[in-house]
């Protein structure tokens, strides 16, 4: 043991010294399952992948804080508090009763949802500008600009003056202040007009779900429709012209019956009425939520959430022969999917399930409220994921805008109004007035995101209805700027009244 090997004795210290001399100091972070902007946006496929998230923002029109703000604050849709269910800290009641403040989660989510999509559009436009300007890149650029304009339309509609930012980086020490609503309005109109030539005209399978000329013109018409609210100046002739551009394109037409519009088998190019489609598949992330939000637990095996209902007064405003009532479930209810489809449905106590028209806002029971089955049950539903498409713009909306524009320009519009009215199985109206247009829009576009806008434009948003008293002030026509944004951005000014 003690017979020392001098070579070992000598070499061991050398090994230690060698180890000291080796020292790694490389701290560069290596992403493996992530990409950074430096190594992306190179191929056509990657550019497509950059445009897709901008489209993804449209999903908020179907399910998310944007649509909740636009629908639950109006006189048609409500989320009753059922025992403790859907109490959710009183947030749904605050929307319905116009008692929200700047900290309400929907108010924050509506802002960040739309602005998040704007930010993605800005980054994507940067990447597209760097790319070779092929026809595809030009079309992508035009589509992204229209989408960004659409999100800004949401923002000025909900919040009034908002920061107009068209670049992907801003100075963190001097964040953007609010741009006057009319100025943003003008900018959106200019953006749409500039992008229109690069958009596709047709409504084919390839453009299903994409921004086309028709979608852009409908957006333009919708902006003009509300121009007085946004800018103080009505723009009915511009509205009419934009509607005409859609109507004369030859691409769109009303479907023969109300049920045809939403029929599952008509999804895709066969549906001549869908102008801007939020297409769905029965997959997580691209599913429809509408059936889950409204149906009773026992209506389908996926066990929906038993929430959204139609308000009593609004339900009662339909004519009894209106075909659109078929889209609303009232009274005895049935199982709608699965092996028991067609059987009577029962509530959780085992009693027959019967949806009631009259119901309280709080202490409502599980069968309270008529439900909306406008978007079909997907026969290929997996779990609760449904592929039922949703229309952000439909042709009937264009016809009704045309009617409203004609009415305001010349007292006309009865033809277009009746096209929609009689399609619902009703006798043609003999005269037109503002209330008839508003009522028709309400019944035709139930839970399609227009009701709050329509009520504001017609001066009725602050009125009392079913459970709601008259609003506590004119300021309720705008939502407050979210408190979190006022905290983060000292250059923002809260809307008056909040």
């Amino acid at each position: 043991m003690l017979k020392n090997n001098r070579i070992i004795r000598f070499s061991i210290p050398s090994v230690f010294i060698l180890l000291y001399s080796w020292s790694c100091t490389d701290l560069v972070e290596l992403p493996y399952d992530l990409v950074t902007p430096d190594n992306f946006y190179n191929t056509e496929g990657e550019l497509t992948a950059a445009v897709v998230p901008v489209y993804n923002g449209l999903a908020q029109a179907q399910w998310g804080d944007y649509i909740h703000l636009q629908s639950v604050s109006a006189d048609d849709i409500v989320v009753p508090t059922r025992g403790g269910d859907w109490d959710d800290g009183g947030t749904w009641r605050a929307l319905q009763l116009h008692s929200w403040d700047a900290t309400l989660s929907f108010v924050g989510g509506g802002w960040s949802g739309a602005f998040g999509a704007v930010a993605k559009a800005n980054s994507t436009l940067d990447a597209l500008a760097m790319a070779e300007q092929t026809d595809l890149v030009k079309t992508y650029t035009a589509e992204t600009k229209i989408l960004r304009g659409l999100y800004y339309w949401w923002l000025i509609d909900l919040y009034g003056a908002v920061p107009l930012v068209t670049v992907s980086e801003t100075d963190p020490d001097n964040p953007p202040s609010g741009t006057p609503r009319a100025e943003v309005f003008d900018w959106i109109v200019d953006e749409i007009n500039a992008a229109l030539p690069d958009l596709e005209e047709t409504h084919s399978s390839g453009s299903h779900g994409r921004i086309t000329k028709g979608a852009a013109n409908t957006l333009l018409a919708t902006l003009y429709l509300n121009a007085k609210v946004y800018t103080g100046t009505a723009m009915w002739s511009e509205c009419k012209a934009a509607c005409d551009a859609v109507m004369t394109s030859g691409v769109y037409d009303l479907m023969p019956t109300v049920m045809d519009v939403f029929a599952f088998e008509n999804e895709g190019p066969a549906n001549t009425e869908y102008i801007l489609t939020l297409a769905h598949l029965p997959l997580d992330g691209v599913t429809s939520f509408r059936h889950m939000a409204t149906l009773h637990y026992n209506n389908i095996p996926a066990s929906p959430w038993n929430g959204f209902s139609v308000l009593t007064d609004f339900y009662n405003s339909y004519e009894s022969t209106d075909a659109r009532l078929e889209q609303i479930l009232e009274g005895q209810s049935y199982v709608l999917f699965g092996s028991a489809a067609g059987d009577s449905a029962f509530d959780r106590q085992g009693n027959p399930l019967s949806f009631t028209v009259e119901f309280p806002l709080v202490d409502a029971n599980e069968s309270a409220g008529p439900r909306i089955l406008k978007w079909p049950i997907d026969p290929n539903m997996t779990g609760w994921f449904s592929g039922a498409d949703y229309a952000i713009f439909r042709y009937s909306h264009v016809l009704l805008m045309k009617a409203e524009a004609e009415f305001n320009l010349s007292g006309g519009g009865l033809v277009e109004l009746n096209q929609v009215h009689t399609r619902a199985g009703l006798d043609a109206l003999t005269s037109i007035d503002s209330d008839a247009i508003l009522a028709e829009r309400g019944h035709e576009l139930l839970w399609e995101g227009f009701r709050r806008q329509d009520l504001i434009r017609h001066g009725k948003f602050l009125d009392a209805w079913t459970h709601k008293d008259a609003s506590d002030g004119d300021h309720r026509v705008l939502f407050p700027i979210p408190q979190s944004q006022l905290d983060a951005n000292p250059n923002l000014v809260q809307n008056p009244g909040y």
Partner: protein
Amino acid sequence: MKNNSLFFSLLICVLCCGQVAAQTGVVSGTVSSADDGSMLVGVNIVVKNTDTGTTTNENGAFVLEGVSANDVLVFSYIGYETAEVAVSGRAVIEVTLVSTVIAGEDVVVIGYGTQSRRDVTGAISSLKEGSFTKGATTDLQSLLQARVPGVVVTANNGDIGSEPRIRIRGGTSINASNNPMIVIDGVPINNSSALPGGFTTGAGAGADGTMDNPLGMLNPNDIASIDILKDAASSAIYGARGGNGVILITTKEGRPGELSLTYSASTSSSSITKKLDLMDAAEFKSYASSIGVDIDDGGANTDWQDEILRSAVSTNHNISFSAGTQQTQYRASISYLDQQGILLNSERQRISTRLNVRHTMLDNKLKLSLKVSPSFSNRNNTPYNQGAGYFGGVFTNVLKFNPTYPVKNADGSYYEYATTTIRNPVALLNEISDVGENLRVLTSATAEYELISGLRAKVTLGLDRESYNRNIYEPNSLPYAASIGGQAAVQNTQRKNDHFNTTLNYSNSSLNVLAGYEFQEFTNSGFGATTKGFVTDAWLYNNMGGATDFTTAPYSFKNQNRLVSFFGRVAYNMGGNLNVMATLRREGSSRFGVDNKWGVFPSASVGFRVTDDIKLRASYGVTGNQEIGNYRSLVTLGSGANAVIGGQLLAGVAANQLANPDLKWETTSDINFGVDFALMDNKITGSVDMYSKTTEDMLVEVNVPQPAVVTTKLDNVGSVENSGLEFFINSVNMSTKDMSWNTSFNFSTNKNNVVSLGKDVEYIVTGQVGGAGLSGVQSAIIKPGEAFGTFFGYELSGYDADGQEILSTDGGPLGDGRRILGSPHPDYTFGMTNQINFGSFDFSFYIWSVQGNKILNNTRLEYQRPSNPFNNINLFSETADDVNAGLGAEAAVALTDKFIEDGSFIRLQNVTIGYTLKTDQFKNLRFYLSADNLLTLTDYSGFDPEVSTISGLAEGIDYTNYPKAKTISFGINVGL
């Protein structure tokens, strides 16, 4: 390294006897242990500065030739202090060597080295094997619970093998981890569970919720000591990872001498401590009819708690053997644990093995060590989803299920609701297969070489490898799973942790200087897939290709982070009474932003021995917390924002994070004052520590001005303070030949106070409450002036004429009527241990108490709701009282002070009585009976006050939790 700082405590006892010889040449003698007088075998003896030497024989005797009268002999032996003895012309020399560990002062592990307890200048607590609980222990953390002042270990729930929460002197962070760093035998390990997730809510609900213990692979019987670095001066040597304290675990080594074999076994029985007071069938029917609900009567009277609970039996076997020569020692161990939880089918098995080998060569100049510990474990995960999921897991459904329903139908099938939202909990436990399989291997290898006297170079290589598989099958026999045709998931997580460090250490009797370099890289990767639609349940998760529905996307991931550090330490004994120490670490982490890659973490501490029995300590240090996740400073593009265009599903890739090139560690600076005392001939020893630590650059998710791709970014803007007092005393009440009685007591208090969340954030609300109709209801607020996760909610003052709750309407931190309702953190905690030996009997018990903390009883909030029968859902018996008091049967119940309960408790944590049989066949033969969690005094109404359902940043929420058990164990220890 181990001997570096032991010169202070070196006690060499050299006995010279025999006559003085006129001439030298041959020296003989014996070497014995100073502890017990036993002869030491294989002691290395060399003539100083020569190659001449020998070792002692089996009788401890030696003969050495060629020694001259002026030579000095060096006696060295593992585990003992080296002694240098001048020959001084003698022919017979008898030497006793002093053990490094047992005699004299304790040795404290301080990170990259050890120190005598006498010289410690920081706040370091140590637990040695001898003071571990004498009962049956299966996990490391239970050794720590209630034993160390300033260290609060809380079981989050009663699930077996679940992760307890360890907090050393309070939490310092909102967005980074508050868990202490764990170092095992010098290698920092990955301290988060690798268990892949389960199915979450939706159609496949119920399987998630398991909180697997990342230290579950450790066999407590292998642990020699646990040292806890509490103040920043002590933990600053670990730099950017020391901010939450450091726990250093040292495993047992072999010793020279004859073979030693130990065997221990225990068998345990566990049962529920307390059941919740739910309505039984008669109460439910009567209450329902009183509020006008005609309940669906299933005709049975089922106590669903009884149906899912059982008396659980566990067994544990440990064998270890060790032996060694003076040059080579080893210790090997294997343990087998088969543990049942008190829920049906909740169980785990663990086989944990360890081999520690040491080898010394080249005149003791080169020391080699290899420690390998592979462990294998399986667990049946229980589907007790605690989260905010609407469907919930077993406990949610126990609470919901109509008590008039039977468990099974006449035909033997499970009784189920017509709706699939409420699920038979017995069926969930019996039908879901959810199995985790873990393989983890910890390896550390060290080599240390003494370059010149007192100067040692050391290299440590550490490898930590873990593979965790989780396979889940939810069969068609469950109605909700039948709606998707059954679903199977196979998932795997791989963890790699490569560690290398090298140190150069010089020590003499008064000075100890250390310099080192360290590199560590953590790599995590994994994959998983889920398929649905099975024609048979027979395949479980073993034939995923047999499914018909492949629409769920598979996943894989990989991420990595890296730390590089340079560090140094100087400890100097300035003449007996005064010790000073300073450390410095420069640490770089790949996680930090490009402009802030490197941080510097200094510390200084001083200890002054006023008398031999009283030492004053003062320390200051700066540490960091880098547990912020990977890639947080970069703009990253993530997938997932998809869209369907042209009938095709198109994948979107968009930025999902904003850049922060300035992102860096959270910085904690800490001042600690302490006193160590020893009174009455060391019969009473103890310490008192006071500290105040301030964490700055605390990471806060800051709202960013829009438009922005995400709403917040992580920024170093916040600040939080923790201050507290700790007290520890150990008293030897009696110590005679036949009887000894030892008591130790610890007390600690910590006050957590948020100072700032940055200029743009007034408060953060968190603690999402679980349950239907409670979406978006937050229970906790983080704001300056309050502790982390302070509960807030309405104050309930009664019921109005309509039966609605009358709630506080304005005021409170948000001005909306929600008031501060208390802190989830205790005012103080204490623990007391008594160990009594009387003849052949030993008796010990320890008591733990937590006082002044609040618990949100979220389970009550949801299941004390008067309207539950409308939904055919059961509820607590006490709801009938609320309704009698005026609460409307259909009223919504808000989060109010009614559900914020006092969580204080005093618990008899463990009682053990043992009997040691004196026999010649065994070195040791002991039988014991032990009881854990036998008695708890508390006003808390839930299962148990020691609870926490993780919800955002909040603690102290109790929601549909796995209940705690009491456990009675019988065990045997055998030593050969």
